C-alpha cells in the first residue's frame, strides 16, 4: 500500500481492493513504527480516524462518489484547526488548547472523504526554516536523521517522505512548504495568495500565509489543491472564484512553446555547487521537453529578506498578541497581577525565535519607526510585485532553486538567526508578491540529501505550473526515490 500514490490508493479503495479502515490502520502502524525516529507527528488520533474511516467506507459502499482522494488518510500541520484535535503550533503557549471548529481546508478535505489521522510537527508558530524551534523537539530528516527536515512544515514533508502519510497539509509564509519539500525530496505547492482559504490557519503573517499540499508527486498535490481551493465566505482574502480544475492529462511529455525564466543572479554567490548543478539540470530537462529557457537578472534581491522579515514580523507581533494567558493555552503560575499574567505568560510560553520576531515586529510598527521600516518594506513589496508582473510579460514561469543548500545538521544553524533567514532568499519574494510556486525534487547533493527546485508562476497560474511539473516528473525519477533505498 505504501508504494501507491494517494490517487492510486483512492482508486484501489473505490475498486474495493483496499478498505478505508485498512488503509488508515496501515498508515497508523507505519507511524507507530517509524515516528519515534522522525518526530514528525505531534498527535495521532487513532480512534477518531477509525470512526471517520468507517463512516466514509459506508458512504462509499452506498455508492457515493466523494472525490479522487476519497478514503485516503491525511495529516495536518499543527497550525491548522481540526475540530476536537489539539492545535499547539508546536508552542507551549497553546498547550491544552482544542479548537471548536475546522479550518475550511480541513472541512473540504473531510467532505472529499479524506481521513485526518493526526497533527504534524513544525517550527513554533511556523517561524523557522528547520522545524527545530518547536517545543516538542526537532523533526528529523528521513534521509538522515541527524539532519533537519526543513521548515516550518518539516513534519508534513518528513511524514510524506518516510511514507507515514500519503498526503499532508502544510502552510507557506516565506517558503515553509517548498523548503522542507526540497530538504526531504517530496513535492509541494504554495498556492497563489487568495486561492485557498486561510480560515482556521493560525495566523503568522496574514498577508503572506497560504495553506498548501505536500505529497509524493504533483498529481496527488494537484488533486488535493483542487479540493481545498476556491472562494470561502469565511476568508475575505480568498478570491479564487471556483476551485482549480487541473484536468487529467495522460503522461504529458512536452512543454513546447513554454517560456521559462532563469534568474542568473540566484546562482552567483551563496549557493552550494551541488544545488546549483541539480537545478541547472532540471532547467535543461525542461528545455529538452520543448520549453524555451532564458536567463535574466532578478532585481531587488538585496531587499527581499529585509522586506519579508519586517512585514512578516510586524503582522506576527499583532497576530500573536491574543496569546495573553487569559483565555486558553499557557498561563504563568507565577503571576499575580494582570500585567504580570501578560508579561510572564508570554515570556515563559513563547520560545526564543517567536519572541525575537514579536519584538522585531513591535519595533517596526512603533510610532517613530513605522515610516522608516514598515512603510519602506511595503514600498519594496510593491516594487517586487511590479518586477514579477513585468517578468511574467516575458516568461510563463520562473525556475529557481528553493534553498541555497541541502538539509544541514540539527543544531548547526540554531544559534545564527541571520544565517537561517538568508536560507529563505529564493522563496520569500514569491510570498511578498502573492504568487504560486511548485517545489519538485530534482536530485541529490554531495551528502546524499535531496535537492529541490521551484517553478514560480503568475497569480492563479497553478494550472500551468502543474502541467509543467507533470511533464518534469514524467521524464524524471527523482520524486520516486525514497529514503532507505525504498522506491515508491
Amino acid at each position, binding site marked *: 500500500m505504501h508504494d501507491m500514490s494517494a490517487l492510486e490508493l483512492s482508486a484501489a479503495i473505490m475498486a474495493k481492493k483496499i478498505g478505508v479502515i485498512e488503509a488508515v490502520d496501515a498508515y497508523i502502524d507505519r507511524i507507530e513504527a517509524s515516528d519515534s525516529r522522525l518526530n514528525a507527528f505531534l498527535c495521532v488520533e487513532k480512534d477518531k480516524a477509525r470512526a471517520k474511516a468507517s463512516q466514509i467506507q459506508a458512504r462509499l459502499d452506498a455508492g457515493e462518489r466523494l472525490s479522487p482522494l476519497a478514503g485516503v488518510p491525511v495529516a495536518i500541520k499543527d*497550525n*491548522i*484547526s481540526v475540530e476536537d484535535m489539539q*492545535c499547539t*503550533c508546536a508552542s507551549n503557549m*497553546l498547550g491544552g*488548547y482544542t*479548537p*471548536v*471548529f475546522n*479550518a475550511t481546508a480541513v472541512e473540504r478535505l473531510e467532505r472529499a472523504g479524506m481521513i485526518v489521522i493526526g497533527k504534524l510537527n513544525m517550527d513554533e508558530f511556523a517561524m523557522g526554516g528547520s522545524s527545530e524551534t518547536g517545543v516538542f523537539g526537532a523533526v528529523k530528516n528521513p534521509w538522515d536523521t541527524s539532519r533537519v527536515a526543513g521548515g516550518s512544515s518539516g513534519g508534513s514533508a518528513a511524514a510524506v517522505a518516510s511514507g507515514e502519510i500519503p498526503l499532508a497539509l502544510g502552510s507557506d509564509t516565506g517558503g515553509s512548504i517548498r523548503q522542507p519539500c526540497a530538504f526531504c525530496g517530496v513535492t509541494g505547492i504554495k498556492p497563489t495568495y487568495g486561492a485557498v482559504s*486561510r*480560515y*482556521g*490557519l*493560525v*495566523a503568522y*503573517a*496574514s*498577508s503572506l500565509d497560504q495553506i498548501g499540499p505536500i505529497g509524493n508527486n504533483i498529481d496527488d498535490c494537484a488533486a488535493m489543491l483542487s479540493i481545498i481551493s476556491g472562494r470561502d*465566505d*469565511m*476568508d*475575505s*482574502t480568498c*478570491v479564487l472564484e471556483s476551485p482549480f480544475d487541473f484536468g487529467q492529462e495522460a503522461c504529458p511529455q512536452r512543454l513546447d512553446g513554454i517560456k521559462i525564466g532563469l534568474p542568473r543572479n540566484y546562482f552567483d554567490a551563496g549557493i552550494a555547487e551541488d544545488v546549483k548543478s541539480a537545478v541547472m539540470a532540471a532547467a535543461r530537462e525542461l528545455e529538452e521537453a520543448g520549453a524555451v529557457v532564458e536567463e535574466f537578472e532578478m532585481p531587488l534581491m538585496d531587499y527581499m529578506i529585509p522586506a519579508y522579515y519586517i512585514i512578516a514580523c*510586524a*503582522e506576527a*507581533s*499583532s497576530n500573536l*498578541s*491574543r496569546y*495573553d494567558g*487569559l*483565555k486558553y493555552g499557557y498561563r504563568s503560575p507565577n503571576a499575580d497581577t*494582570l500585567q504580570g499574567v*501578560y508579561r510572564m505568560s508570554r515570556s515563559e510560553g513563547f520560545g526564543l525565535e517567536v519572541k525575537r520576531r514579536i519584538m522585531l515586529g*513591535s519595533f517596526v*510598527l*512603533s*510610532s517613530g519607526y*513605522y515610516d522608516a521600516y*514598515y512603510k519602506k518594506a511595503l514600498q519594496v513589496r510593491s516594487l517586487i510585485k511590479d518586477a514579477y508582473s513585468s517578468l511574467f510579460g516575458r516568461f510563463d514561469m520562473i525556475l529557481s532553486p528553493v534553498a541555497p543548500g541541502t538539509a544541514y545538521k540539527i543544531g548547526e544553524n540554531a544559534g545564527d538567526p541571520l544565517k537561517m533567514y538568508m536560507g529563505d532568499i529564493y522563496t520569500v519574494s514569491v510570498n511578498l508578491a502573492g504568487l504560486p510556486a511548485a517545489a519538485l525534487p530534482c536530485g541529490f547533493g554531495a551528502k546524499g540529501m535531496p535537492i529541490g527546485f521551484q517553478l514560480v508562476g503568475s497569480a492563479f497560474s497553478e494550472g500551468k505550473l502543474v502541467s509543467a511539473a507533470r511533464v518534469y516528473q514524467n521524464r524524471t525519477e527523482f520524486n520516486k526515490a525514497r529514503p532507505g533505498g525504498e522506491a515508491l
Partner: protein
Amino acid sequence: MTWEVVVGLEVHAELSTRSKIFCGCTTAFGGEPNSQVCPVCSGMPGSLPRLNSAVVEYAARLGIALNCEIANECVFDRKNYFYPDLPKAYQISQLYAPICSGGFLEIEVGEASKKIGIREIHMEEDAGKLIHNSQSGETFMDFNRCGVPLLEIVSLPDIRSGAEAAAYLERLREILLYLDICDCKMQEGSLRADVNLSVRRCGSSEFGVRTEMKNLNSIKAVSRAIEHESVRQIALLDRGGTVTQQTRRWDDTKGESYAMRSKENAQDYRYFPEPDLPNSALGESWLARILENMPELAHEKRERYAGEFGISAYEAKVLTGDRNIAGLFEELASLCGNPKEAARLISGELMRLMNASSILPEELNIDASKLAKLVVLVTEGKISRDAYKETIEAVFTQNVDPGAYIAQKGLLMQSDDDAVMESVLAAINDNPEAVADYFLGKEKALTFLMGKVMKKLGKSANPIAVKKSMEDRLQCIGGKK
C-alpha cells in the same frame, strides 16, 4: 481675565445592525454572558473577520446626514493593545482612511444657529465587558459585545460650552434615530461621548493643553462635566498653574472628575493596515442608492411642516421629537386632509395622554385612520370638541372603533334635522318673555332659549347648529314684526 472654553466631542454610536461587524453573531443587548459569541468575535486562533456590509451603509448614511465626504474605498487598520475585554488584543478600526470625513452638524444656540465641524466618522468593533466580583476578587469576561459595530464620530474643537455640547448631542441623537441606525440608549452604552476640553484666553488662536474625559453616560452628564472641567482648568491657570494632558474619569454621582492616566503613560497602538480585510471599493452606484434611500431628517421635516402646512415652530418641534410621532402625524395629516388639526391633536391631546400614562413617543402605537375619522367628524361639526376628546382617549386607552363608540354613547350631534327645528320652535312658543327680551337686545335671552333646546336634545345636540337655527327662526319672527 476672560477665558474661552474649547471642546471637541468623540461620540461612539453602537449600530443597530442585526449581526456584528465581522461575524454573524447577534448584536442583541442583554443576553447571557458569552451566549452571543463565535470563534471570530472571540478571537480564536485561525479565525478571520468578514465585513458586514450593512455597517458600511449605516456609516455612509450618517456621513451624508452630517454633510461629510464619503470615501471611495473601505480600509481598515489594526489598533493593538492588551486588555482582557479585547480577545484578539487588537481592535479593527480605521485610522488612515476613515469612511467619512470633513462634515458639519448645525445646532441651535438660543436664537442663532451654529455649525460644528465633523472631522471624521470611522467604523470599528466594540470590545467586551468585564464583570468584577468585589467579594471574591474575581473578574469575569463577557464577550457578547465584542464585535458589535461602532461608529466613532469625531467633532472639530468648535464647541464652546456645555449647552452647545448638549445641543450637538441632542441633534446627533435625533439624526441617528431618524436614520434608524442606533437606538441611542446612553444608559445601556449604545451612545457614549468622550469630551476633549481645553481653555484659552479670549481672542487667542492657540489651543491650550487638553484633557479627555470618559464615562459620560447622559447628555446632562456631558454638559455638567464640561462646566466642571472648565472651571477646574481656569482656576488652575488663574492660580498660575498648568493643565496636564491626561485622561480623566467623570463621576456623575459626585459631580467631579479624577485623573485616570497622563500622557506619559499613553499607549503606542502600533496601528497598521488590517491584512485580513482587503480594501473594498465603494462604487458610485452604491452611494447613489444610499442617497436615494435617505430618510427625511427631523430638521428637514420641521422646515417642511412650517412651510407647507403653516404649523407653529412649537408644534413642529413636538411632532418631530420622535420619528414614530412624525410618522403618525404625516399619516394622519394625509388621511384627514387637515394637517393643522392633525398637528393640534398630536401635540395637544395625544401628548397629554402619553404623559399621563408614561408612554414614550417611540412606543406609541395608535391607529392613524381612527384618529383621522375623528378629525373629520369634529371639523365637519358632527361631534363636539368634548366628544372628540373623549373618543380620542377611548381610542388611545382601549383602541375602540370610533364610529361604534360614538354611536353607542350617542355622541353624534343632531344639527340640521327636524328634531332641532322642532325643539327650537317649542322653546320659542313656550317662552314668549324670553323672545321679547331677545328683541329688546338682551343677550342672555338667546342663551336661555338655547339652553332649553340643549336640555331637550341632550349631548347629541350640536350647539352651533342649534344656535344657527334659533337665530334664523328669531330673525323670521323679527322680520314679520
